[in-house]
């Protein structure tokens, strides 16, 4: 048996980052644990090179319209979208990691290697067409993230966060596995399409429904939806800032994509009232809890964690609406969310605030020292709050429009109110950066410490700011080029 060219092109987006991930630890074989500068530079360059290579390959697939598949691995539009999405997020994270790891004093090649392995797992998770590949992708994307959360071992907080992520993630993965086992037991098949047909029957087996519910719980854990959101604030606070940003964007995005694929296959039957009402309840609870809890936070990373929980709520609202236009809206929202959130997490590294020094007090007045970065993060914050004409506004607009058209007016109203509430805590950061004066103690400390340069993180932040503005100014182009094409080719809607 040999692989056809089409099959090879389906696996290639996975192979390129995997190759990089396997070769990177070779650079970390220095016995002294503090590698020479050019080796460190070469490691980061190789990571970026692999990500760029994968990115260009996937965009070439996208441009030529090819949708190869290898067995149950479907590198169709959803998989290619996930590839582009995850690789851009990972590239921004790698840029920020250079500065962050140097500031923490813990530069290791394994960090990049684990990040690239997680990228492979994420693309696999979003392209999986049967339950085994879904589970393997879930594990492959999660296990490196557990290690990455705890990777900066100088801080005890990091270990605690990694441990919490690992334990809760293991429970969620075993839930997912139990659900898959029940589904397989009832339908004798692992393929999503076959399971969907079995579940779409007029009287589906209650055991199969239980299995589908457990699989749903696994997905909701990864999306950080209530009541499976408990891990998010602690883990985001404990992880290094670029890794938190990467987790918040990429795992959520890929989980949403895989969830869309699973829903699109009919697992559980999307037309049924049960799944819609369940998702609606979860989305409402997530929105409300995420926004209310973010109001009270004094730590920037915890605030961003709760804000990402609330964004999961908006995304779930889009899935509740269920029409093709709503799905396209969700995909546009994910792209906007990528830029906004990576920028929001990037400001902390760019200003040199690592470890536990991430409270609002720490950033007071720092906006005037680096005004370009502060303006970029202000744009990201305004976009997160949904203020026009930035990208976040258009994402929310598309989702709310579809909700109202489908008749769920009350949910749209709750969403808009939640957005209004969120403006308060999103504006706290620009206000602290520009309008507040640092305390005397902080000024003395800043004068004593040498000036922290974070060129790559600053560049990544500026790129995010530019992307946010660009997507806000040209939403239609982005929508047509990216979001609509996925929905046209990939989904068969049971409505």
């Amino acid at each position, binding site marked *: 048996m040999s692989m056809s060219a089409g099959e090879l092109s389906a696996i290639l987006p996975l192979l390129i980052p995997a190759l990089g991930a396997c070769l990177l630890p070779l650079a970390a*074989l220095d016995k002294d644990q503090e590698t020479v500068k050019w080796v460190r530079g070469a490691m980061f360059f190789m990571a970026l090179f692999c990500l760029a290579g994968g990115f260009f390959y996937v965009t070439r697939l996208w441009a030529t319209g090819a949708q190869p598949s290898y067995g149950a691995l479907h590198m169709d539009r959803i998989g290619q979208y996930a590839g582009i999405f995850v690789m851009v997020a990972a590239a921004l994270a790698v840029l920020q990691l250079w500065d962050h790891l140097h500031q923490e004093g813990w530069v290791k090649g394994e960090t990049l290697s684990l990040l690239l392995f997680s990228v492979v797992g994420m693309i696999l998770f979003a392209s999986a067409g049967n339950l085994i590949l879904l589970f393997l992708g879930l594990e492959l994307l999660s296990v490196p993230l557990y290690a990455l959360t705890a990777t900066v071992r100088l801080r005890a907080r990091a270990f605690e966060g990694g441990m919490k992520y690992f334990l809760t993630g293991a429970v969620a993965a075993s839930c997912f596995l139990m659900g898959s086992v029940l589904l397989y037991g009832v339908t004798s098949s692992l393929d999503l399409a076959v399971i969907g047909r079995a579940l779409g029957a007029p009287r589906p087996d209650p055991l199969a429904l239980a299995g589908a519910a457990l699989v749903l719980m696994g997905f909701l854990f990864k999306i950080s939806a209530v009541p499976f959101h408990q891990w998010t604030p602690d883990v985001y606070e404990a992880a290094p800032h670029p890794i938190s940003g990467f987790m918040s964007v990429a795992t959520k995005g890929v989980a949403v994509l895989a969830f869309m694929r699973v829903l699109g296959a009919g697992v559980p039957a999307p037309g049924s009232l049960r799944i819609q009402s369940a998702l609606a309840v979860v989305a409402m609870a997530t929105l409300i809890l995420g926004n209310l809890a973010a109001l009270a936070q004094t730590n920037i990373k915890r605030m961003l964690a709760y804000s990402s929980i609330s964004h999961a709520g908006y995304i779930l609202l889009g899935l509740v609406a269920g029409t093709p236009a709503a799905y396209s809206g969700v995909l546009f929202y994910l792209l906007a969310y990528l830029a906004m959130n990576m920028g929001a997490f990037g400001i902390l590294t760019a200003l040199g605030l690592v470890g536990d020094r991430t409270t609002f007090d720490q950033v007071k007045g720092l906006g005037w020292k680096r005004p370009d970065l502060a303006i970029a993060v202000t744009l990201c914050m305004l976009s997160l709050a949904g203020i026009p004409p930035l990208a976040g506004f258009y994402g929310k607009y598309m989702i709310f429009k579809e909700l109202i058209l489908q008749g769920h007016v009350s949910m749209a109203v709750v969403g808009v109110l939640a957005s209004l509430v969120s403006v308060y805590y999103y504006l706290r950061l620009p206000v602290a950066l520009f309008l507040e004066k640092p305390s005397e103690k902080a000024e003395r400390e800043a004068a004593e410490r040498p000036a922290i340069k974070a060129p790559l993180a600053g560049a990544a932040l500026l790129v995010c700011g530019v992307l946010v503005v660009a997507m806000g100014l040209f939403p239609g182009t982005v929508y047509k080029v990216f979001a609509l094409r996925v929905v046209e080719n990939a989904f068969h809607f049971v409505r």
Partner: protein
Amino acid sequence: MRSYVPVLLLILVAIALPVVIWGISRIVRPHIPSASKYSTYECGIKTTLEAREKFSVRYYLVAVMFLVFDVETVFLMPWAIQMKELAIFGLIEMGIFLFLLLFGYGYIWSKGALTWE
């Protein structure tokens, strides 16, 4: 499943033998307890400290690495059974599997995780 019946008999005998021996000795032996008989044995000297000491985490790392290679062994088994039928193609597939894990082995060796200190 016929071939596993001897295994079952072996397990039954393995459980029965110590139980019988212990039961008979329990019935037959005299039972005269005293305080010094129940204290911990340390070559006749009185014990001062508890027997527990600080356990190093290196044991755990060794156990985790053992587990990873154990899972690899489990997947070697079906290949070994069907080796002739799978021919060169199975060898290549298994080779990729083993190569990736060999890579991991080389990595942990060079990081010094296989030495004790």
